[in-house]
């Protein structure tokens, strides 16, 4: 900052820090309530949920540690929808929202919005809790309907900010509709109570906070906090190299896509002079007759996730820093604004990842030290939805048996358990014992796949092999596994991560390949075999510190042959780096490249 510090700025620095800690504390408290009280594994074990606070003008203020794809954009649109559909808001109201046409990520993410009304009836803030449901009432027992040709085939009930509590009482008409449509309704009811409870906790805390420090102070705080965040973002962009980079990523062919799959084009332009980053997603195909189409929330959040992954992580993520990012979308585009009845069933993952990944790779193209490689694609069977009936009792839930997928960063190897780019590793991986206790399931194996990491100066995560069977019944495994054909690309010369694949193992041990997007029924004497994607590498592999390569070999992540052929590192019999032989190998690489 070049301008002389002012008197008001002093107040900002102190007050901002203290009040920010309060807001984040409230959002964290909401999240804690949700995790501890939910019923389905996807909320309480995997933690697939988010909690945020917005201003009365629907600006995103505090997100605690939410899933990026859930919250960067979308909550603002959802809150606006609430206010527009319900011009009179009252204390005690709560709204159920899962409409992808009105700001929600996808129909599986049931969200509760509660307007925080002060004692004079003025709408001051909105708290929002959003959780991925074990089941949302789709036509098939999965929340990922990759093949659904439209929202009707998808089948979930859609709630565009529908009042589900009035005067703190449930609107039982809505509750009964859900109970008649959603599988395992007791589980849904428990999860609904948990999400509602989290939002109510947020409301209670915000009311106490406002009464304590005064609503006007909070209002001036929010505008100061947004300005501070915008300043931080501007400073970061002003220091970046200028440039416009185009990049693309291809989603595997799925039902309803062209035979060659879906190629997503992104154009990223960094304008240091204007302190602005622009992303253009308009040069992409129209919406398709399947569940891959993005919601507006995901189309906006995916490139922003990639941008924030690519820069100084201490810049706050809120409506203030968002002023320095422009994302251009098109109506009726697969990576734009969907038009009803387009299905957005799997909007948070597949195409969203194919938007975010090339954006962060494009950022890397701007200069060493920026951007990231690509994160592995999802959703493999090992993180799919399992269902069936065991001893007369139905079960349905998403399991998190095995995932990795992390992308290499400029100075850091991949965080192993990222899952996918929009998740950022915020979910938890299941305990095998807990899975086997809760479901009629036997997990034969869960292990990393050697040599499936994207090689690089820093390397991506290896993929995961998982094999599991039902116990005493049949089990349907529903999944939408992108990455069978298109692995995660590396950045700045980094290698591609291993591809995904999936099989049915028959009783005789034979492996039968099964499609990338399917609901597969596994018999009690069979097993589902799932291989998930690795993540891409950053920088050329021959620039990797040989000691780290030796460590990867010792730990079994990388074979000695790959160390020699890809990383150009020679190891002695005891596993130590052979410095002379390595230097010779690497000198030869330079010669080959030059030739």
């Amino acid at each position: 900052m070049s301008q002389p510090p002012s008197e008001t700025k002093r107040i900002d620095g102190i007050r901002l820090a203290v009040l920010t800690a309060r807001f984040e504390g409230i959002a964290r408290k909401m999240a804690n309530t949700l995790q501890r009280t939910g019923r389905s594994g996807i909320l309480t074990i995997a933690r697939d949920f988010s909690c945020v606070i917005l201003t009365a003008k629907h600006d995103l203020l505090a997100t605690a540690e939410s899933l990026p794809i859930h919250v960067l954009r979308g909550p603002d649109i959802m809150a606006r929808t609430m206010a527009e559909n319900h011009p009179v808001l009252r204390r005690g109201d709560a709204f159920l929202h899962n409409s992808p046409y009105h700001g929600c990520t996808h129909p599986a993410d049931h969200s509760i919005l509660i307007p925080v009304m002060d004692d004079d009836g003025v709408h001051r803030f909105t708290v929002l809790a959003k959780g991925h449901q074990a089941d949302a009432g789709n036509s098939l027992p999965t929340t990922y309907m990759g093949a659904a040709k439209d929202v009707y085939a998808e089948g979930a009930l859609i709630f565009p900010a529908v009042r589900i509590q009035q005067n703190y009482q449930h609107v039982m008409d809505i509750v009964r509709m859900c109970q008649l449509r959603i599988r395992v309704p007791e589980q849904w009811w428990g999860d609904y109570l948990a999400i509602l409870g989290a939002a109510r906790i947020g409301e209670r805390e915000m009311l106490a906070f406002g009464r304590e420090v005064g609503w006007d102070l909070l209002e001036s705080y929010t505008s100061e906090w947004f300005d501070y965040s915008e300043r931080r973002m501007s400073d970061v962009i002003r220091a970046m190299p200028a440039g416009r980079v185009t990049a693309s990523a291809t989603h595997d062919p799925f039902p309803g896509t062209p035979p060659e799959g879906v190629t997503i084009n992104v154009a990223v332009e960094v304008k240091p002079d204007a302190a602005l980053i622009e992303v253009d997603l308009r040069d992409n195909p129209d919406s398709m007759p399947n569940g891959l189409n993005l919601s507006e929330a995901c189309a906006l959040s995916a490139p922003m996730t990639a941008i924030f992954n690519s820069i100084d992580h201490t810049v706050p993520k809120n409506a203030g820093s968002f002023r320095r990012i422009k994302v251009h979308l098109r109506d009726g585009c697969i990576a734009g604004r969907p038009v009803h009845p387009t299905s957005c069933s799997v909007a948070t993952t597949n195409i969203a990842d194919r938007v975010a990944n090339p954006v962060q790779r494009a950022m890397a193209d701007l200069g060493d030290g920026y951007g990231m490689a690509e994160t592995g694609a999802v959703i493999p069977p090992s993180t799919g939805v399992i269902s069936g009936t065991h001893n007369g009792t139905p079960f349905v839930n998403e399991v998190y048996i095995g995932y990795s997928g992390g992308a290499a960063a400029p100075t850091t190897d991949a965080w192993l358990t990222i899952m996918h780019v929009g998740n950022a590793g915020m979910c938890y991986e299941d305990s095998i014992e807990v899975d086997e206790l809760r479901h009629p399931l036997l997990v034969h194996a869960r292990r990393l796949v050697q040599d499936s990491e994207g090689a690089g100066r820093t390397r991506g995560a290896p993929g995961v092999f998982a094999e599991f069977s039902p116990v005493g019944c049949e089990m349907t495994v529903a999944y939408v596994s992108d990455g069978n054909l298109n692995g995660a690309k590396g950045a700045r010369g980094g290698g591609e991560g291993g591809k995904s694949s999936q099989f049915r193992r028959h009783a005789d041990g034979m492996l039968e390949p099964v499609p990338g997007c399917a609901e597969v029924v596994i018999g009690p004497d069979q097993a589902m075999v799932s291989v998930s994607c690795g993540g891409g590498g950053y920088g050329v592999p021959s620039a990797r510190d040989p000691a780290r390569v030796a460590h990867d070999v010792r730990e079994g992540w990388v074979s000695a042959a790959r160390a020699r052929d890809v990383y150009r590192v020679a190891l002695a019999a005891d596993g130590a780096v052979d410095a002379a032989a390595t230097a010779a190998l690497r000198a030869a690489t330079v010669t080959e490249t030059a030739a």
Partner: protein
Amino acid sequence: MTLRFAVDTGGTFTDLVVAGADGSRSMHKVATTPSDPIGGVIGSLRAAAEAAGEPFGDYLKRGSMLVHGTTHAINAIVTGNTARTAFLTTLGHPDILVFREGGRMEPFNFTVEYPEPYVPKALTFEVPERVMVDGSVRLPLDEEAVEQILHRLAAGKVQAIAVCLLWSIVNPVHELAVGALIERHLPGVPYTLSHKVNPSIREFRRAASTCMDASLKPIMGTYMRNLEGRLRAEGFEGRVLVVTSQGGVMDAGNAAETPVHLINSGPSMAPVAARAYGGAETTLIVGDTGGTTFDVSVVRRGRIPRTRETWLGQRFRSHMTGMPSVDVRSIGAGGGSIAWVDAGGLLHVGPRSAGAVPGPACYGRGGANPTVTDAALLLGFIDAEFFLGGRMHLDRDAAAASVQRAVAGPLGCSLDDAATAILDLATEHMVQAIFDITVNQGIDPTGAAFVAGGGAAGLNCVAIGRRLGCRTVIVPETGAALSAAGALLSELSAHQQAMFYSNSAAFDRDGVNAVLERLEAQCRQFAAGPGAGALESSVDWVAEARYPDQAWEIEVPLRAPRFASADDVAALAADFHAAHQDVFAVSDPHSAVEAVGWSAEVRCRVASGDPGRLAAAADGRTALPSRRVRFASGWCDAPVHRFETLPDGAEIFGPAMVESGFTSIVLDPGTRAVRDALGSLMIEVTL
């Protein structure tokens, strides 16, 4: 006259509290010697003997018991000084320690490395075997394969072995067989079986505890032998006990056999002391402010809550112990926390600390960064001439220069305002840490009392109390050595637990009762063994229960050690609904309740639970010169009282300072403080 000693070795200071037979206490602090922590233990005892004017050997001979809290185990892990340990796991699951449980903090921060597994994969071996969820054996143990693995371990110079197989908690037959093979083929190599050290579900947590335990056996065995040996050599003839993570104590010899219990040995005693001073009727929030960390714990109407999620450092970025331990949350905030201003003009305090070396700028040891201690000095909260009772002189100019350069300058404010802001922000971080452990679990701080421990606690304990809405802040007279004071009051204890699933809608009374009977037999065995000769012993019974399909259990105390009738089952369900409402502000009273685990904690009292009284200060000074102190209302002249010589019942009104040879307590305007019968300063905070 016999003496009892409690020594708590911290990162900066080794604290000793000595109890005489008449209940009197004396408190001593010496510098910790990181290279030889037992030397610090002996040094603190030597200091006490000197203060008592007795020859060291004679003084030690009077000791009947020494209780030791140590960070040696956690330090060994953090510095990588544990044994070369192998991990034996079920076939197909070699990456349990690599995957951990997923989870991550700071979603956009890609500058932090993914943590290495506690045991490297190079030392991880898959054992062909598989037990199912119901205890049936799907794949019998391949003993030949195990023998081959053991041969490789011998060749690989492995010093300890951890065995964690899936579902060993339901049927341990394979773990026991592997243990027998280790004893046969690698006699003398220490090993740990998961179902013995931590019989709980979730294979990652159990494997983590097992590996930590095995890896600590050699070093903690040596430490305990040396501790006892050196104390004996100096003339100590009493019993040597160590503090466990669960807030109890065990014999040093037994602790060496299950060293995983010692990982959180230090801070677990602060709530025990707080309970003795604050009473069992109210809820107590316990803050222990040291140089680098602020540890928070809670006492809920006499009960000290436990957690299974204990991380050795930051969540997800460090190792989780997987062991039940007193729920103590630590954040990087303390007297040494560094303050700075970022590029956008935002003030930060911590988590970086100046530590003991170089320390705050005012220590004059080369520290250039301003710390909370420097800010406190500038505000007059600390007396440059009477720091630690005058044993150390502080450099006010150095403090002023560092705060001016790093905070006041960049913020464009006065030195005074900068110092106040540093204290305010440190207070806010501590308050948020307290909220994490209280409000988030349904504890309302406004109905609680705040117990302030640790050398730096007095600087902002009133500010914290006010911000929390606590009307009462308690500073015990032994507050500066709160953990050591607690260790003198602790009980010999052992935690017995078992997994057994039962649903309240179809409760298996006989099955549960059989489990409880087994636990009770283990408790009786402990009471007759290590607990023999105790003043009294008791057992606390707990069910780990949840609503159907919930993933996380909460602890519900049992009213009786057996389920005699359906009424007892109904009582458990009712207690669960109430506990769930209490913790999470919601309950589902029409739902069935699932109990999945049962535990019994046997506690044998070896000494009085009375915290005793400190003997008066030797120098007899009752008051110190008044000085300028800056409160929220501005600078004023504040009288300075000497804590040690303040008579019981004495009443002080803020603005004032209360100082001892160990700490400095700030009484803001509007507060009223009274010294109570236990010697504590009871501060009434105006909200």
